C-alpha cells in the first residue's frame, strides 16, 4: 500500500481553503491511493475537508483522500497531474486556484471542462489510482459533475474502499502497454450544460476509447462496483465500463501541461483555454506513436463514440495486449517509482527547456480571462468567433462536416504531370555539366535553375562556377557554396567584371568567404559593385563587421541583404547598414545572428526608411519592446515579418503588429508558444490582407484559427498550421468556406483533423496545389481516394519522392519580394 504521505511530493501550505473548496466541490477523490478513505460531501454545502492529494507512485498522481479533517493538503509530485479542478494551471506548482474550474471538464455530455485541451498529458498510469472520483452533481452549485461520486456510491451502499488487492488488479487491468498513458478525466465544469448527468470517462488510453463517453446514470453507478470486480476479466470494453466511476483529471484539464517527454508536450500553453472547452484528448504515448483522440463533448454521446470508434479502429491489437500487459505490470511497485521519477525529470526538463506551458500564474490568469472573452465583439474576428461558438454549441463538431467521398473514382485520378521538356533537358544538362562549354546564351532564370539543381545534387564545381561568372554576368546565384574553397573563390571572383552584376547569391559560404578574400575580390574598392541590388551571404560565418562595411561601401545600391547565420556580426554592422543604406534598403535578413543584440540595434533599425522585409528569426534577445519600437516606426511599409523562434514574444507584440502593419503580407510566428488566441485575434483584426501565414507549434485553439480564417483569410495563399495541434474540424470548415485562393496548405501533425475535414478542404479550395500532411496517420484512404481535386499534390502521407512537389511553389526569378529592383 502506498504510504500516506509521500515526502517528496507533499505540497502544503497551498491555499488550503481554496483547495478544499475545490476539492469538495468536485468531490475529487483519488481512488487508487486513497482507497481506504471515506469521502463525504454534502450535496449542497461545501464543507472543508481534508483532502489529501497524493502522488501515486506511478507517477502522476495526485490522489486526494479525505481524512475527515478540515484542511486540504495537496500533495503531488511535480509530474503528477493534479486532478482537481480548475483554475490553476501551473505546471510545477500544483496550485489550485479556486476561480475557475479549469481542469474540470464540464461541457456537454460529459467531458470536459475548460482547459481540457488536448491531452497533452501523458501520465503514467500504472495504477488506476489516478482516477479521481468525481462527484455527482449534487454538489454545491456545480452542475454536471458527472461522475459517480463517492457519495452517490455511498448512498447506494457501495463501498469503494476496496481492498488493496482488488484495486491492484483493477489498476492492473487498466494499465497500459507503455508506461505512459494518458488518462483523461472529465470533470464537468461549471458551465456544463448537462445537468445531473454524468460523464465519466475513463479514458484509458487506447483500447478504451470506445467507451470514453458514457453517461452514467444512477444505474450505471451501481454497476460500478461490480464493474470493478470484473475489471480484470474483461477486455477493453469491460474495463471501460467498470471504470466509469473513476476519474482522473488529466493534467491538461487543468491546463498544466505535463509532459512525460519533452517532445510530447504538444505546445500547450497553460492559457489555452478553449473558447469552447469541449474537447478532450487522449494522447497515446510513445510506443504506438502518438495518437490523439479527440473526444468532443456532445450531449449525444453516441456520436462521440462513433468518432472514437473510428479512431480506435486502428489499434485493435493494442487493446488486446493492454490487459495482459497491464496485469503483468500491476504488481511492480518499483516500476512506478522509477517512472514517477522519470516523469518528474521530464517535467522539469520541459519546464526549463521548452517552456511550453511555463506561464506564471498571473499571466495565465490574465490570459485565461482574456481568452475566454474576446476583447471586442464587433471586430471581424470577434463576430466570426461568436458565430463559430454558436454554431458549435448547436451541434457537435464532427457533425458539422458533411463530406462524403465522391463515388466517382475517375474524378479523383490526379492528372499525371507530364514532365516538361524544359525540366527534362535541364536534368540532362545537369548530369553532363562538366561537358558544358558555354552558358552565355542561356537566360539568367535558366542558369539559376541549373545551378540550383547542381547544388542539390552536389555536382556543382568550379568549372560551372567559371561558366557562370564569365563575361559580364548580371546574376550569380549559387545556393550552396560549401564545396567552394578559398582558392576557388579567389580564382573565380578575382577577375570578374562586376559592373552589371545585380544579384549575388553565395549561400552557405562560410568556408570561402573570408574578410581578406572578400576585400581582394569583390569588394575591392568603393563602388566596385555599382548595380548590385541583392546580395545573400547566408552562413558567412567568418565574415566580420569590418568586411561587411567594405562590402557595403562597394555596393551603394543594395536593396536586399541576407546575412542569416553570419555569426560574427554584431550590432555594429547594422549601424553600418543603416548609415549607408538607410534610405534604400528594403529587405534585411539577420536570422540566427546570435551576436546581434536586439536592444542595441533598435536605433539603427529605426533609420531605415523603406524596410519591407525584416527577418529576425532565431534571435533570442528579440522581445516585445523591440517589436513595438520597430513596428511602430515601419508599420506602414512592412510587408514581411519573420519572428519565428523568438521565444520571448507575447501577445503584446501581435497587438502592436496588428495595430500598425496593415499591409502585412507574410508573417511567420512559428514556435512562439507564448502566443495565445488573443494574439491571433489582433492579427486577424489588423492584418486583413495577409497572404502567407506560418504557424508552427503554436497553441492556438481550433476556434481561434477558424475565426481568423473567416475574418481575414480571404487572401491567404499559403498557410502553414504545422503542429498547431488543436486545429480540427472547425478550421476545416472555415478553410473550405473562406480560403478560395489558397495554394499551399500545411497541416502536418494536426492530428485532430479528420479525413472528412480534409476532404472538405480539398474539394472546396480548388486552387490548392500543395497539401502537406506529414505525421497525419489518422488520415485514411477515405480521403485519399475520395477527394475530387485533381490538381492538388498531397505530400507526406506516403513514401514517395517529394522534392519536386515541395519546391513546386518556390518563386523562380524573383529579385525583391515586394517591389521591383530599381
Amino acid at each position: 500500500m502506498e504510504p500516506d504521505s509521500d515526502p517528496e511530493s507533499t505540497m502544503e501550505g497551498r491555499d488550503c481553503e481554496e483547495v478544499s473548496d475545490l476539492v469538495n466541490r468536485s468531490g475529487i477523490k483519488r481512488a487508487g491511493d486513497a482507497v481506504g478513505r471515506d469521502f463525504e460531501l454534502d450535496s449542497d454545502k461545501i464543507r472543508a475537508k481534508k483532502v489529501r492529494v497524493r502522488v501515486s507512485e506511478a507517477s502522476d498522481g495526485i490522489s486526494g483522500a479525505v481524512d475527515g479533517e478540515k484542511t486540504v493538503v495537496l500533495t503531488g509530485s511535480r509530474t503528477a497531474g493534479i486532478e482537481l479542478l480548475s483554475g490553476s494551471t501551473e505546471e510545477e506548482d500544483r496550485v489550485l486556484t479556486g476561480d475557475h474550474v479549469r481542469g474540470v471538464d464540464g461541457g456537454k455530455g460529459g467531458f470536459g471542462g475548460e482547459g481540457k485541451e488536448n491531452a497533452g498529458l501523458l501520465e503514467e498510469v500504472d495504477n488506476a489510482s489516478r482516477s479521481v472520483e468525481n462527484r455527482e452533481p449534487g454538489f454545491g452549485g456545480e452542475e454536471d459533475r458527472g461522475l459517480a461520486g463517492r457519495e452517490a456510491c455511498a448512498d447506494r451502499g457501495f463501498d469503494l474502499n476496496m481492498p488493496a488487492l482488488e484495486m491492484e488488479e483493477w489498476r492492473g487491468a487498466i494499465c497500459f502497454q507503455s508506461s505512459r498513458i494518458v488518462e483523461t478525466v472529465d470533470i464537468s465544469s461549471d458551465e456544463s450544460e448537462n445537468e445531473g448527468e454524468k460523464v465519466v470517462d475513463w479514458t484509458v488510453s487506447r483500447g478504451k476509447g470506445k467507451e470514453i463517453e458514457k453517461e452514467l446514470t444512477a444505474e450505471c453507478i451501481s454497476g460500478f462496483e461490480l464493474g470493478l470486480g470484473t475489471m480484470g476479466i474483461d477486455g477493453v470494453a469491460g474495463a471501460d465500463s467498470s471504470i466509469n466511476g473513476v476519474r482522473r483529471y488529466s493534467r491538461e484539464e487543468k491546463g498544466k501541461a505535463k509532459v512525460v517527454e519533452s517532445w510530447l508536450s504538444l505546445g500547450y500553453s497553460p492559457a489555452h483555454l478553449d473558447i469552447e472547452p469541449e474537447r478532450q484528448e487522449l494522447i497515446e504515448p510513445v510506443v504506438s506513436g502518438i495518437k490523439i483522440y479527440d473526444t468532443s463533448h456532445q450531449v449525444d454521446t453516441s456520436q462521440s463514440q462513433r468518432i472514437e470508434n473510428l479512431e480506435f479502429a486502428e489499434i485493435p491489437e493494442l487493446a488486446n495486449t493492454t490487459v495482459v500487459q497491464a496485469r503483468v505490470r500491476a504488481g511492480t511497485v518499483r516500476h512506478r517509482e522509477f517512472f514517477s521519477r522519470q516523469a518528474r525529470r521530464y517535467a522539469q526538463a520541459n519546464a526549463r527547456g521548452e517552456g511550453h506551458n511555463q506561464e506564471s500564474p498571473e499571466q495565465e490568469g490574465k490570459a485565461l480571462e482574456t481568452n475566454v472573452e474576446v476583447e471586442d465583439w464587433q471586430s471581424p474576428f470577434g463576430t466570426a468567433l461568436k458565430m463559430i461558438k454558436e454554431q458549435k454549441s448547436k451541434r457537435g463538431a464532427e457533425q458539422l462536416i458533411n463530406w462524403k467521398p465522391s463515388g466517382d473514382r475517375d474524378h479523383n485520378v490526379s492528372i499525371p504531370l507530364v514532365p516538361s521538356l524544359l525540366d527534362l533537358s535541364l536534368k540532362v544538362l545537369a548530369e553532363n555539366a562538366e561537358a558544358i562549354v558555354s552558358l552565355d546564351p542561356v537566360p539568367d532564370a535558366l542558369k539559376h535553375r541549373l545551378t540550383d539543381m547542381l547544388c542539390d545534387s552536389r555536382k556543382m564545381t568550379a568549372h560551372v562556377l567559371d561558366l557562370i561568372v564569365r563575361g559580364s554576368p548580371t546574376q550569380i546565384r549559387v545556393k550552396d557554396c560549401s564545396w567552394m574553397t578559398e582558392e576557388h573563390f579567389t580564382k573565380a571572383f578575382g577577375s570578374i567584371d562586376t559592373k552589371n552584376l545585380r544579384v549575388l547569391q553565395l549561400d552557405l559560404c562560410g568556408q570561402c568567404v573570408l574578410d581578406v578574400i572578400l576585400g581582394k575580390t569583390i569588394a575591392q574598392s568603393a563602388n566596385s559593385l555599382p548595380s548590385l541590388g541583392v546580395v545573400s551571404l547566408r552562413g558567412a560565418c567568418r565574415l566580420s563587421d569590418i568586411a561587411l562595411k567594405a562590402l557595403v561601401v562597394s555596393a551603394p545600391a543594395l536593396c536586399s541583404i541576407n546575412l542569416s547565420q553570419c555569426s560574427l556580426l554584431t550590432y555594429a554592422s547594422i549601424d553600418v547598414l543603416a548609415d549607408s543604406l538607410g534610405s534604400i534598403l528594403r529587405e534585411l535578413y539577420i536570422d540566427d545572428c546570435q551576436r546581434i543584440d536586439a536592444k542595441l540595434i533598435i536605433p539603427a533599425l529605426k533609420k531605415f526608411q523603406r524596410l519591407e522585409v525584416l527577418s529576425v528569426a532565431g534571435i533570442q534577445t528579440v522581445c516585445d519592446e523591440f517589436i513595438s519600437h520597430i513596428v511602430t516606426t515601419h508599420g506602414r511599409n512592412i510587408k514581411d515579418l519573420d519572428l519565428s523562434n523568438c521565444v520571448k514574444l507575447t501577445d503584446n507584440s501581435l497587438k502592436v503588429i496588428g495595430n500598425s502593419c496593415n499591409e502585412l503580407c507574410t508573417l511567420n510566428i512559428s514556435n512562439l508558444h507564448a502566443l495565445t488566441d488573443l494574439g491571433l485575434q489582433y492579427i486577424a483584426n489588423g492584418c486583413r490582407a495577409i497572404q502567407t501565414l506560418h504557424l508552427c507549434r503554436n497553441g492556438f485553439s481550433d476556434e481561434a484559427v477558424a475565426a481568423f480564417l473567416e475574418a481575414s483569410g480571404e487572401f491567404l495563399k499559403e498557410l502553414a498550421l504545422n503542429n498547431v495541434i488543436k486545429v480540427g474540424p472547425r478550421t476545416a470548415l472555415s478553410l473550405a468556406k473562406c480560403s478560395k485562393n489558397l495554394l499551399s496548405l500545411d497541416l502536418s501533425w494536426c492530428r485532430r483533423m479528420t479525413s472528412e475535414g480534409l476532404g472538405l478542404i480539398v474539394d472546396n479550395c480548388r486552387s490548392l496545389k500543395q497539401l502537406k500532411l506529414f505525421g497525419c496517420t489518422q488520415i485514411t484512404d477515405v480521403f485519399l481516394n475520395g477527394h475530387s481535386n485533381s490538381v492538388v499534390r498531397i505530400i507526406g502521407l506516403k513514401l514517395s519522392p517529394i522534392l519536386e512537389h515541395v519546391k513546386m511553389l518556390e518563386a523562380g526569378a524573383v529579385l525583391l519580394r515586394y517591389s521591383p529592383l530599381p
Partner: protein
Amino acid sequence: MRKEDTVKLISAEGFEFVVDKKAAMVSQTIRNMLTSPGSFAETEHGEVTFPEITTTILEKICQYFYWSLQYASILYDSGKESEFHIEPELTLELMMAANYLHT
C-alpha cells in the same frame, strides 16, 4: 491526316514539320498563337516559323510533343513512366528552345 488538324512548324533552315494540332498545343506558345482571338498570320495559314530554332532541335521538339501525348496513357496502362531520351549534345539548345516555347 486532314489539313485542318495539322500545323506546320518551320525551322530556321526552312525544314517543315507537319504535326497534329493537338501535339503542337503541348507548347503553350504555339497554343496561344493558334487559339488567340486576334488573328496571327499563323492562325490563318496554319504555319509557324521559328527562325531561332534549328532543324535537329525542332525535330526533337516534335518528338517530345508526341511523347507527352502518350505519357499519360502509358502511365495508366503499365504504371511505369516512359522515358524521353535526349542526346547530351542537344540539351543546351533544346533547353532554350523549350523555354521559349513554354513546353
